[in-house]
């Protein structure tokens, strides 16, 4: 086996400058009461925050200025992301558009799509959802049944998507649809379409999550028309761009920093003189966190160089998810707490309540452990 390499990434000076800039922005945001870190995260949907982040130039960093971007490196983008996560910023409105949809459009979109959409994403005004899963497919994306039929000037979609985050409040979703009938190659005949959520023929039904919050949706399409220039890439090539997209999103710091505020609140709750148990266990969590960040930065460097470390990215997600899952479980062993959503003023208790109810979702998004481990096993030559 070729050993994994997580070479040091020395962030360039412009990344340090960007870090200072985003920190100043976030400091101002917190000072103005824009958000409370222990209660928010990158999945908190806050259009006001996103608009200010866009205005300050923190969205669409890597895209060409021709499309409203800022022509910056992936490493500067990485720094902005990790600072947002570390600060618990409520970046949920623009996160998917910035991380995933925008880059896909920049790479595979038509000129009109790029001109129409990218500048608005970068301004923090235009949000995206993901339309991959279906009621009968789940992890098995190749089982997609929603279909788009070719018509004059575009495509007509019929079918349904499920688990689409924020479908009720985003402007677009990118839907994975079948554009030719199933064949022996299960992965052939799939395409990605940018669907304007204001189009006729779309119905959105909420799915409340276990905490009672409305994040997910079912999306039903009935003869929903999408113009030709909203197709991403070539018809039938959707599988490759979807799997590429997943690889890309897997190694980001959002894969192990979702609940990092629990660690921050834990440290403050424990105070400056931890007992041996608290010191050892907090030290262990910090060692895990520091190492994950190291892995993630290395991969950012590889991506910047144009490499595509698929197995390493899946490893970051798998190891990162385990860390996210374990963090609140360790925390509750170090400090007695009966988490309550109503425990105003006890930041640790509130953070624990929030995270305990969110934790089941950590293993779902971006590929279940089963899928990820299967990918890793393939990378190891086991399948």
């Amino acid at each position: 086996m070729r050993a994994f390499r997580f070479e040091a990434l020395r962030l360039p000076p412009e990344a340090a400058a960007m870090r200072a800039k985003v920190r100043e922005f976030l400091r101002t945001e917190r000072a103005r009461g824009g958000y409370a870190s222990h209660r928010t995260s990158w999945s908190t949907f806050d259009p006001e925050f996103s608009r200010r982040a866009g205005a300050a130039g923190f969205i669409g960093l890597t895209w060409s200025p021709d499309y409203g971007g800022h022509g910056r490196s992936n490493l500067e983008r990485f720094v902005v992301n990790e600072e947002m996560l570390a600060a618990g910023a409520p970046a949920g409105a623009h996160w998917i558009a910035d991380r995933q949809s925008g880059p896909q459009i920049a790479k595979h979109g038509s000129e009109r799509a790029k001109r129409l959409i990218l500048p608005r994403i970068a301004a923090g005004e235009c949000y995206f959802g993901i339309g991959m899963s279906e009621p009968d497919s789940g992890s098995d994306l190749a089982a997609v049944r929603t279909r788009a039929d070719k018509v004059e000037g575009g495509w007509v979609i019929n079918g349904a998507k499920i688990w689409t985050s924020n479908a009720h409040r985003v402007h677009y979703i990118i839907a994975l649809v079948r554009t030719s009938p199933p064949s022996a190659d299960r992965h052939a005949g799939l395409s990605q379409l940018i669907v304007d959520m204001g189009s006729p023929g779309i119905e959105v039904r909420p799915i409340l999550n276990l905490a009672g919050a409305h994040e997910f949706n079912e999306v039903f399409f009935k003869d929903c028309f999408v113009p030709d220039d909203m197709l991403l890439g070539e018809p039938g090539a959707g599988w490759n761009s979807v799997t590429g997209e997943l690889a890309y999103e897997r190694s980001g710091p959002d894969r192990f920093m979702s609940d990092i505020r629990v660690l921050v609140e834990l440290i403050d709750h424990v105070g400056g003189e931890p007992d041996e148990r608290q010191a050892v266990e907090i030290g262990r969590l910090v060692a895990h966190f520091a190492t994950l960040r190291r892995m993630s930065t290395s991969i950012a460097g590889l991506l910047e160089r144009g490499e595509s470390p698929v197995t390493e990215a899946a490893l970051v997600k798998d190891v990162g998810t385990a860390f996210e899952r374990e963090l609140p479980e360790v925390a509750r062993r170090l400090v007695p707490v009966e988490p309550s959503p109503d425990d105003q003023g006890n930041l640790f208790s509130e953070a624990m309540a929030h995270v305990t109810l969110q934790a089941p979702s950590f293993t779902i998004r971006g590929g279940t452990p089963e899928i990820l481990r299967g990918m890793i096993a393939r990378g190891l030559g086991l399948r």
Partner: protein
Amino acid sequence: MSMPHAAHEMSAIMLDQADRLFQQFITKDALSAADRGIWPDALWAAVEEAGLPLALVPEEAGGVGLGVGDAALLIRRSAYHTAPVPLAETILANALWAEAGGAPVAGPVTLAPTNARDTLTLAPAADGRRTLAGAAHRVPWGAQAGHALVLARDEAGAARLCLVPGGAAASTALRNLANEPRDTLAFDGVAVPEAMIRPAPDRLAGSLMAQGAALRTQQMAGAMERCLDYALLYANERVQFGRPIAKFQAIQHMLAIAAGHLAAATAAADSLIEAAGTPGFAFAAAIAKSRAGEAAGQMAAICHQVHAAMGFTREHPLHFATRRLWSWRDEFGAEAFWQAQIGRLVCANGGEALWTTITGEAAE
């Protein structure tokens, strides 16, 4: 339990009836309403009609006179159905009050204090009544219960049980992760007539912690069984990549591990039945609560993983069980609280005494 065959039969019938009652009244709508803070009148009326709150009160004191084992299984079943009422607390409160010589009361009865940090005191008598001082946090259904059974120290340091009517103490509303009420009750200045004050049974050793831990252990065993049932059902029904996910080795292994946790929690809960009333009860409760609490967290995690996105919805009832597990494992002392007590005891006794502690000889 070593019980006569006939009693075993009777108990099976009684549990079966209770099961049907729970099934009938604990509908998804009822659970959702309770989640929004609405007291389930119909359920509680049926529970009271069936005499369940008096399960452990002796027949001669007007109760049902169940054995400890049957009462434990009853509580487990109520938790299997995620009954959104303080039935476990009421059964225990009525039993303790009856044991102290009091007459059982109707309606839900809660308990205070429920954690090791709260201490309540009873001022000396004046005018045939005494006043309480101190606050109790996280009291189950503190504001809604008809009565609270309060353990307080009197001026001589003796532990007394006081039966205080609902509403007597000022309450501040709080919920646990399952949205079960866990209110703060401020008892300062609450007057209690002498008739409502009785010496606490010696076996409490001045604390409700071990008794409360035992309740939560039985409840966790019940709710864990429900979680596993949901997961087995889902795994056999849900098709991915052309076959039920139950056929995937990874899912089978996860569920086998979950079954191990259920087995351990059940064994821990069962051990409390025989320890009831013995000097080893507090130690057994420490073992059982900490072992079952650890298992509860693992069970919830595995079952959510098996259910994937479906289990993360409000629609699927899994969360009624898992949110209770996440709450109950922390109540009446989380794992670390009890483990520290166990650890200090066995270390004080030295390595060679470990084995007789495990066989139960040391505690007797």
